[in-house]
């Protein structure tokens, strides 16, 4: 984005905010600004950021405006908008992207070795054999030329962004802009690449409506200008390890607004499509912190976890070396593209009805005469339909890996051993209780593998489980045990003679990836 277009986006955001606040009554405007002042004061009380003083001065200036008059309040909100627009903008550059992506395998290597020992992973390191990319990529490449795409991936780890970035590069898909939490920019290597590969900053500490509206307006504006965009509809990394089912509609809804604005501009805007994307990791960098957070009572308060494994560069390095040294340890699956209400589309981007026939989707928002009917309430419900279609796609497109199914089988075996314990009691089993019989585990694992096979055949799931000589369950168990032992200090599952040791929390975390899959009956 050039400086000129940066200025034009900033102007556009102030224009949108002006329209919004001019429609507000005096009381509503007062409440809008007062909420921002209050929450910013709360946030800045404990802030030690370098910019804190400057921010406090700006907030106090807004506070004074509240007591002056409507014109002053409008000016204060617009001043905030200008500041936030500047903060959110990225320094995305097409030229830099091209250069960076050509060097990406090397860049990824440098990323991983930047914060630790200088030894690179070696010039022969090929992420292509570690990160498997699936899906209708030819179709998506074609659609990207004539449509604006919104990529909606599941969110597992803070490493999702570089992994997806690699997958986009490898498949020849164009650059995507995406909102990255401000805290992620603390990691210098990530900051360098993220801002150059399309990341704009999202400060989740700012919880007031002014900021959220500027963020949504930014998304609407950029999509409307044809920028392919990426949102994580789950909002944050899923703490429990489950595939997200409750999706946030805020940013998803900006796509439908951008679409209508494009239609209103006499069809000058490009049509917008949504692409679900599922990520499946053999091992998850932050698994221990995430599950701990999910289980602890403080989980909800710690929405932004900044002191987890990702914030330790050495940990990231070790993880990346170990995980990315494992064949096909990460699977990225692009799903079939959808329109903004979740209907499937054909290769030309036309919406298809349940019978596979094309239909005119503009009729959802336009009259026969071609007038767009603005109805934000209707659009919220439409976005709900999109969210439902996405969560179905996430389940259907998930790739089951050995660590997930073995962890799940191990968790089931613990439940069978301790039937009176609930989840919170089971994760607190004493160390001497944290084991299952190897044969019992293999039996349960076979039941799961049969179930996964049935679902895969029915097109309801995918799998990337080991095949080869030997009994399948044994192969899967062996691979999972090897993988778990390569990273976690206390593996989710480990061999000890005739027993399998189980770390219940990690077993719960990894096994939760199959929470949406109907569990096979226990045949005893």
């Amino acid at each position, binding site marked *: 984005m050039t400086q000129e277009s940066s200025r034009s986006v900033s102007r556009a955001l102030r224009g949108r905010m002006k329209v919004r606040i001019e429609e507000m009554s005096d009381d509503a405007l007062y409440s809008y600004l007062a909420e921002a002042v209050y929450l910013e004061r709360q946030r800045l009380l404990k802030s030690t950021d370098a910019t804190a003083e400057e921010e406090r001065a700006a907030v106090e200036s807004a506070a004074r405006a509240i007591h002056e008059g409507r014109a002053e309040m409008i000016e204060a909100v617009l001043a905030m908008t200008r500041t936030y627009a500047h903060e959110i903008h990225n320094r995305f550059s097409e030229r830099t992207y091209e250069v960076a992506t050509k060097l990406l395998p090397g860049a990824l290597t440098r990323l991983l070795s930047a914060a630790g020992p200088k030894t690179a992973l070696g010039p022969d390191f090929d992420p292509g054999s570690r990160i498997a990319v699936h899906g209708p990529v030819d179709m998506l490449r074609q659609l990207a030329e004539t449509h604006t795409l919104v990529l909606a991936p599941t969110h597992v780890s803070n490493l999702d962004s570089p992994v997806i970035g690699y997958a986009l590069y490898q498949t020849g898909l164009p650059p995507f802009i995406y909102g990255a939490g401000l805290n992620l920019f603390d990691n210098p290597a990530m900051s360098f690449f993220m801002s150059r590969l399309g990341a704009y900053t999202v400060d989740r500490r700012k919880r007031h409506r002014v900021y959220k509206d500027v963020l949504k307006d930014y998304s609407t504006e950029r999509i409307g200008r044809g920028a392919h965009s990426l949102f994580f509809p789950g909002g944050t990394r899923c703490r429990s390890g489950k595939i997200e089912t409750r999706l946030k509609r805020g940013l998803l809804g900006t796509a439908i607004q951008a679409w209508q604005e494009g239609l209103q501009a006499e069809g000058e805007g490009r049509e917008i499509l949504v692409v679900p994307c599922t990520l499946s990791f053999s091992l998850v960098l932050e698994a221990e912190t995430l599950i701990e957070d999910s289980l602890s009572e403080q989980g909800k308060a710690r929405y932004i976890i900044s002191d987890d494994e990702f914030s330790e560069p050495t940990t990231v390095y070790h993880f990346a070396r170990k995980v990315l040294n494992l064949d096909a340890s990460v699977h990225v699956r692009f799903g079939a593209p959808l329109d903004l*209400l979740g*209907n499937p589309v054909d290769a030309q981007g036309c*919406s298809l*009805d*349940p019978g596979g026939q094309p*239909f*005119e*989707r*503009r*009729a*959802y928002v336009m009259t*026969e005469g071609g007038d767009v009917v603005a*109805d934000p*309430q*209707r659009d919220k*419900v*439409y976005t*709900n*339909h999109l969210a439902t279609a996405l969560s179905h796609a996430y389940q259907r497109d998930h790739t089951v890996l050995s660590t997930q199914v073995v962890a799940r089988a191990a968790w089931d075996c613990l439940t069978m051993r301790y039937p009176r314990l609930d989840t919170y009691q089971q994760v607190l089993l004493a160390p001497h209780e944290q084991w299952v019989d190897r044969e019992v585990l293999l039996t349960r694992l076979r039941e799961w593998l049969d179930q996964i096979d049935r679902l895969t055949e029915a097109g309801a799931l995918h799998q990337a489980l080991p095949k080869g000589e030997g009994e399948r369950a044994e192969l899967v168990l062996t691979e999972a045990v090897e993988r778990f032992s390569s990273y976690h200090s206390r593996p989710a599952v480990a061999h000890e003679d005739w027993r399998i040791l189980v770390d219940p929390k990690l077993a719960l975390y990894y096994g939760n990836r199959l929470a949406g899959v109907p569990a096979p009956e226990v045949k005893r």
Partner: protein
Amino acid sequence: MNVGIIGSGAWGKALATLVARAGHQPRIGYRRNPPGGIPGTPNLDTLVAESDLTILSVPSDAVESVIRQCKPGAESRMVIATRGLQPETGEWLSDLVVSLSPCRRVGSLAGPALAAEVVRNRPSGMVIASPFDEVCTLTQDALHSAICRVYTSNDMRGVELAGAMVLVLSMAVGITVGLDLGIGSRGIVITRGIAEATRLGAALGAHPQTFAGLAGVGDLVSCASHKDHPSFAAGLALARGARCPERFQRDAQSVIRLAQRSEVDLPLTSAVAAIATGELRPKLAFDALMRREARAE
């Protein structure tokens, strides 16, 4: 406003009467019997395409075939004015519109409005529920008049479930009348039946207040007081030894299937289902209900 009504039975014609009284143009779509006296067409897809709003008033087991025939599009607004669930699966009737067509703007209409009374200008009331405010206000506009009050709600699931439960519970009231269990037993069945509906509704994300409203208590009181209402009459006949017609068995079983999936216990509804399928005799079933363990309300 052009309002299409699919279904030329008594209820379809009553709806057409209400539309005309509200100052709009009704047209009835029919498959077999022309409506007589009201503009009608057998071309259901044309009717839907030319209507600003379409109301479906056909039996629950005909909803799927009608949707396939009338082919609502992205521009359509469809309102289901049929009580019940999908007979085979216990799923929502409104989901059929979404799963079989691109139409998303769907609503459900229910309440104590009896066809015979509507055509005689007696006061009636209904609730239109849809997640879309637009569908609610359009339907309200299409039907509301000095003799019919139409209220709006966003709790479509609640209204659909209430309608399905009313069918079963009015059968239950019919059974108590047929068994001559007394006036008090009607009160018990209505109250405890609505409690079961509320419990199931809450488990499914519906608003509890919906069941205390027009689609719940309102509709049940009117159906259970109307000796010719089909469900009530079926209950009456069951109590007197008649065999239960299959459609009423399906009504009860579809609710039970939904309750089982949600792991909600519905003793009264289960008893009615068992009576309808002949598994239990009516008197024994009600005796068993009265002998259940005492508990708080």
